[in-house]
């Protein structure tokens, strides 16, 4: 599979470019929207939440940004990735190419966007007086874990979506729920110790906490959570790949 992908690297490259540029084609600010969007979201939460939830987290603005930007990475890849096979039905029916290229290019374009967005996080950390530490070298590790985690989910969903179109709507709903089940707006300490482990079952919780360790607290994420992330990412990625492999043979007939 890797050799096959390597042979088609030009297609992968031009597809990633198309994903990054194509989304906001025709809009005045173009690609800038992919960075502006999460920032505007942060702005709303930063104004609203300290008042209605009475959250007293230090550096709440930075706390939010480090939560929202990885979250945006996750949801953008998910929502675009699960429809990618369907909207490319035209070429799937007419030409052979490794079908994995479609979900992979969506995930890769998300990863590129995320790395650029991290500059915004850094900017806010520096302006807020938090500074930067050597822990930043760990950032790519977690970004890549998140990449494979999301890719695994997207591989499965984009394939299943061809057979059952409801997936798109179900996932949209799950994303909405997951937003509140992930400590983006609130700290996990808000929950009593007894049920807090439920939050930590969610790999996104572990990821966002890790990003916060890197950017805000300047400390090493716990080894246990890294291990948990690696295990669950590997499992999800290979299950996703397996489902995709099983279903891809019918794409040209079913879309």
């Amino acid at each position, binding site marked *: 599979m890797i050799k096959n992908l390597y042979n088609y690297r030009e297609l992968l490259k031009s597809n990633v470019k198309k994903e990054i540029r194509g989304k906001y084609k025709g809009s005045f600010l173009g690609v800038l929207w992919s960075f502006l969007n999460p920032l505007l979201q942060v702005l709303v939460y930063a104004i609203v939440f300290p008042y209605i939830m009475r959250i007293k987290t230090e550096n709440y603005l930075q706390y939010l940004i480090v939560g929202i930007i990885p979250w945006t990475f996750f949801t953008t890849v998910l929502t675009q990735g699960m429809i990618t096979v369907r909207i490319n039905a035209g*070429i799937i029916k007419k*030409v052979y190419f490794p079908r994995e290229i479609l979900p992979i290019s969506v995930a890769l374009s998300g990863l590129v966007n995320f790395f650029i967005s991290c500059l915004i996080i850094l900017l806010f950390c520096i302006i807020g007086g938090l500074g930067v530490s050597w822990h930043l070298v760990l950032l790519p590790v977690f970004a890549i874990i998140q990449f494979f985690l999301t890719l695994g989910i997207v591989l499965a969903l984009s394939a299943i979506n061809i057979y059952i179109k409801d997936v798109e709507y179900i996932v949209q709903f799950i994303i909405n729920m997951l937003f509140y089940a992930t400590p983006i707006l609130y700290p996990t300490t808000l929950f009593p110790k007894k049920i807090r482990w439920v939050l930590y079952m969610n790999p996104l919780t572990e990821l966002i906490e890790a990003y916060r360790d890197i950017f805000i607290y300047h400390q090493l994420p716990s080894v246990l959570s890294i291990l948990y992330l690696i295990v669950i990412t590997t499992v999800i990625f290979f299950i996703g790949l397996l489902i995709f492999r099983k279903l891809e*043979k019918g794409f040209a007939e079913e879309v």
Partner: protein
Amino acid sequence: MTKTSPYSIEVNNVTKKFKVYFDKPNTLKERLVFWKNNKAETRTVLEDINVKIKKGETVALIGVNGSGKSTLLKLMTKIIYPTKGEIITRGKLTSLLELGAGFHDDFTGRENIYFNASIFGLTRSEIEKKIDDIIEFSELGDFIDNPVRTYSSGMYMRLAFSVAINVEAEILLIDEILAVGDQHFQEKCFQKLHELKESDKTIVIVSHALDSIKKLCTRAIWINNGHVEMDGKVDKVIDEYLKVCK
């Protein structure tokens, strides 16, 4: 995969069945509510096909409409997969099933060459080496930098054909497209196909243009009702085929 095998394409005991839904269940609700009703009818398009094509052969697939020849070609490109049996292809493969598959209307001809050739698995440097040949072959001249949506269907077809034919794949699969384009370009295409044939490429063509096929191909496979009716020298097969058609 052994390199010593003389065959470019091996079709072994291939059966292809399509599900024909009268009302295809697309949503979960439809699947659950009507799960008893949408028993799909299966239609066997190809049954137990065995074809071996040697490297360097130029083969025509002939047969009446709906006989399954296009399906066989699609199976060879790996766009669809056989229900039973296996298909082995050796070497880089290019297909021209429908002209301009994967063209983007808003992109210029030149950008589409890059995009189309990358779908065929070429790298950027490989494309750059060939792009002048491709543009020259297409005879589009200055139009190459216009968006393809402004092209006439003839120009569109010329561009698509120029890309596919210049990819230099070892196996070229072509479906019913030789009838497009003006006389001049058609002849040019045939000349190019002859060149490819001489340079030991494997070519499989589905076509109804029997006269052109006779000149180009060495072997013909007549497919009728999902079976191989006859397989052999192009003249013989076409003669027999014409007898039945009349």
